[in-house]
């Protein structure tokens, strides 16, 4: 079946997607909460920046990230000063890039979920002595749970499917940055169509199952909420 190279690429892809999803849950939740509830005039610009990766060519995003994280970029100089070395062409470089790339897929479903809760349940919580933070964890999060699941699945799946940013930031190092999509590209470049077929089939089935789970599960979630 799959060669060890391919398995390694798949495992790397899953690890990357899991780490990115976890980080984005932590970063994206406060951003989405803020966007859902603020009346600040910076709401528009911030929402636009969050949505940028949706329309920007991945190579453009990757190019800028490469500059910023490179030896002359501010993040690159910071990581070197901290003794972390340079981020491009490492796993963590990929993670940082993917966090930017997948940000809207976490923030937007969460923002919609928070907005649909409305002000009322939080006001009720306040009159029942819950502090704002308390109300967030005991009322907003449980009520937005379907949103959290949708956002996590979309973020995970979107990170699995990324290619352009990986190529710009990560290159093609086996076991470090060579994720499944890059591996397929390699196979095709080398005219190994049979291998490309196998790996592509795995990705296709995965993508279908993810979306199937998402859509099959949604109506049930509505009923609960």
């Amino acid at each position, binding site marked *: 079946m799959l060669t060890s190279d391919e398995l390694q690429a798949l495992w790397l892809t899953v690890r990357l997607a899991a780490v990115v999803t976890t980080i984005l849950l932590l970063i994206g939740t406060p951003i989405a909460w803020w966007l859902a509830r603020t009346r600040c005039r910076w709401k528009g610009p911030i929402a636009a920046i969050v949505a940028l990766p949706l329309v920007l060519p991945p190579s453009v995003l990757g190019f800028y990230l490469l500059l910023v994280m490179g030896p002359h970029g501010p993040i690159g100089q910071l990581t070197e000063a901290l003794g972390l070395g340079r981020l491009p062409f490492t796993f963590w470089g990929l993670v940082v890039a993917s966090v930017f790339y997948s940000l809207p897929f976490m923030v937007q479903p969460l923002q919609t979920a928070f907005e649909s809760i409305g002000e009322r349940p939080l006001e009720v919580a306040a*009159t*029942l*002595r819950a502090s704002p933070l*308390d109300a967030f964890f005991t009322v907003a999060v449980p009520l937005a749970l379907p949103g959290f699941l949708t956002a996590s699945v979309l973020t995970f799946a979107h990170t699995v499917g990324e290619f352009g940013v990986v190529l710009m930031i990560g290159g093609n190092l086996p076991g470090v940055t060579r994720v499944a999509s890059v591996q397929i590209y390699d196979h095709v470049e080398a005219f190994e169509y049979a291998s490309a077929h196998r790996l592509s089939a795995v990705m296709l089935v995965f993508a279908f199952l993810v979306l199937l789970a998402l859509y099959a599960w949604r109506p049930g979630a509505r009923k609960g909420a």
Partner: protein
Amino acid sequence: MNRIQARFQLAWPGFGLDVDIALPGRGVTVLFGHSGSGKTTLLRCIAGLERPPVGKLSINGDTWQDERTWLPPHRRPLGYVFQEASLFPHLSVLGNLRYGLRRAKTIANGQGVSLEHAIDLLGIGHLLERKPDRLSGGERSRVAIARALAVSPRLLLLDEPLAALDHDRKQEILPYLERLHDELEVPVLYVSHAPDEVARIADHLVVLEDGRALASGPLGETLARLDLPIRLGEDTGVVIDAVVAERDEQWHLVRASFAGGSVWVRDTGMAVGHRARVRILARDVSLAHTHGDDSSILNALLAHVVAVADEAHPALALVRLDVAGTPLIARVTRRSAAHLGLRPGLPIWAQIKAVALIG
């Protein structure tokens, strides 16, 4: 010091609130007004859900808000029942009840309502395991009221808790509200635009219009005022505190006695000695110079005219009467008023066509 002092000023586009009122520190105060009169906004200011630029609030001696003080809503020892029951859908009935209870424990001190008492008062013991979406509208309202009570509030705020319910469901909840009134010491502020709710549960009445308090006073007095530009229309009338004094088994009537007189009312099974309210609508009171023994009218009270005022319709007048200290309002045509020669001080018989015994 047993008082609620509230002063709020805010200006929103198209709406302003400017209220400075003192309310009794116990019993039920109804904030009455049409939609848009500011009654809900006033309640939200008291709860701290709105933060007006000018605000001063003290409850029985404790300052919740003034120039220097601001207690956020979750630090105010109050219970709030929203217009829609607004139960947490992800928690069971018991979970909803415990949500506030668990948090209030850290603030509250001994006194107050126990969870068991709240469950018992609202009759929801059989619903505890259910999720809110498995409750009827009336049951949801009762749970919401119990949830607000379970935090042992020092002030209970109710924002039209019956507005979303049909007539039958209202009749289902009102007795529970009356029980709260009879059994609890907590002062209650109750927002309503329904005159029948006012008649049943109010002790004190505040009439709001365009964000201002037009009147604030004990229920009987305030209802009997003729100078309020806000009219209850067909519902204009008075509510009198009475006691069931006597039962007439033969004719199925009871005599409700109040300061200054008594009226015979249909027997609804209330025990003799029971305290009740008598509601007499202005349109059900006719005036005559004689007692009128030859009519079918059962109740006639000798009164004195206090004042005559114009009704909204030019054909009608409202007459404020005094029955040995108890106010009464009659609605008659202006022609009749002229014909009878009504003027302040004139003794006159008030013939009462219909009396409702409530509570």
